[in-house]
């Protein structure tokens, strides 16, 4: 089975729309000057929504940690075992869930620099993944 495809909601539609053009957006609170992940209805720092905005990110960061999934507990991505699940710390400071692709799992390490890459979803959106930078 392939990927589980994320549902979009009102809050996150701008993020997913931008993926169609391979633009990687990060939510920011301009008042707190802080990036937010996962995207929220209000900034958890000031509890206000007024100062939230989407900023285009260069999509660069480093691997915080990762696993090599051989036996997924859920029946998704079983067509590409083993795959790498990672937490990547973006230059913006947030830590995001992703996959590391375009390299052998044995080449992935904690601290490895990575950059965003894109994989197609079924409806024209793309999902951001990361590859060695």
């Amino acid at each position: 089975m392939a990927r589980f495809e994320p549902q979009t909601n009102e809050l996150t539609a701008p993020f997913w729309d931008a993926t169609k053009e391979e633009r990687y957006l990060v939510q920011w609170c301009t008042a707190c000057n802080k990036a937010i992940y996962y995207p929220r209805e209000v900034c958890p720092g000031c509890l206000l929504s007024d100062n939230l905005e989407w900023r285009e990110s260069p999509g660069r960061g480093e691997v915080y940690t990762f696993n090599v999934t051989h036996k997924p507990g859920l029946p998704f991505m079983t067509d590409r075992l083993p795959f790498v699940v990672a937490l990547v710390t973006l230059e913006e400071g947030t830590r995001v869930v992703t996959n590391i692709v375009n390299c052998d799992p044995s080449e992935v390490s904690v601290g490895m620099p990575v950059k965003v890459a894109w994989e197609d979803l079924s409806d024209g959106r793309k999902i951001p993944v990361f590859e060695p930078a």
Partner: protein
Amino acid sequence: MSYDPREARGKAAIVGAIDIASPTGMLDKKGRALEMQMIKGALDDAGLKVTDIDAVFSCMGMMPSMELAEYLGITPRYTDSTMTGGSSFEVHVEHATAALTLGLCDVALILYAQTPKSSKGDMGGMAGMMSMMGASPMAQWDLPYGLGTPSASYSLAAQRHMALYGTTSEQLAQIAVSTREWAMMNPNARFQEALTIDEVLSSPMVAAPLHKLDCCLVTDGAGALILTRADRAKDLRRDPVYILGTGTAHTHAMSISQMPDITTTSAAISGPKAFSMAGITHDDVDVLMTYDSFTITTLLALEDLGFCKKGEGGAFVEDGKLGPKGSFPTNTNGGGLSYTHPGMYGMFVLVEAVRQLRGESGPRQVPNAKLAVANGCGGVLSACSTVVLGTEETL
């Protein structure tokens, strides 16, 4: 006016305790029938009747404590449906201790029963799971990347611990081996055969660096506890096991990306709180019962509770000191790794701690055990709750 949790030290006690598990991993009863078996067992243990219960603690259901009390036909005056996953029962002990100390209730029931092994499919399968996840952030930000099960999240913690501190798969495997040594002395344990480090390392990789035998079981299991105030406890059937200290903290829910430091659990907060309330040091602890959903869960708890420094857990466990021949008896029932793990294992660390302090653990009894620490860890390294328990001598 100042408030000090130390005022509640020793004010409440566990006076009834029972759990059930089977070498087959399956139990005959399930649902309410299993729950009632546990309640009767715990009440009989204490020498109390169902009408004595005036506080109900449960985390299973839509309105857990209400549904349970309705089924029992009782009218509790204190109610608590706190759900923190596997550590719910330690949290319930903390809340019950506070409520009993304040006189909000007199007799508290804490209950757990789950039968995932014999009830496969009853949860509604994938469809049920997806509807449960619903609009949670996980469905949008975790699941699309294949991050959706405990093993995937815990392996992320293990990997970074290895990268930062040089922890090895052999050291993690030693935790499974030491825990199995205890299970070999527990006739109700799911796995009672000897285990070697090589067998752990050669078991199939689930999510590297965690192998199948780094992961807990999936079995049926259930348990119940009865607590009352210390003044009432003395008149009951069994020697009371006193609650000396409690502490709870949580860092995130089910999205491990939100954990501030993936190698430090909230036991680093709950542990010191509980130890401070109890007025104990690490040297006072005779038995450690700590949640072991995975080998890494035990290792992080040893560090976060302060039995060794952060990063030194691997070296701490590698001589086998957690096992029956070791100097630091840990998870003496055989743990979630080898005894039982129905999904929320925290009940069983409490029940075994009670057994050890009553001197009832048979061949796996730690001689002269007076003080035990029970540490629950719920969610995905999310919610830790620590309970310090002691015999009358420790009051």
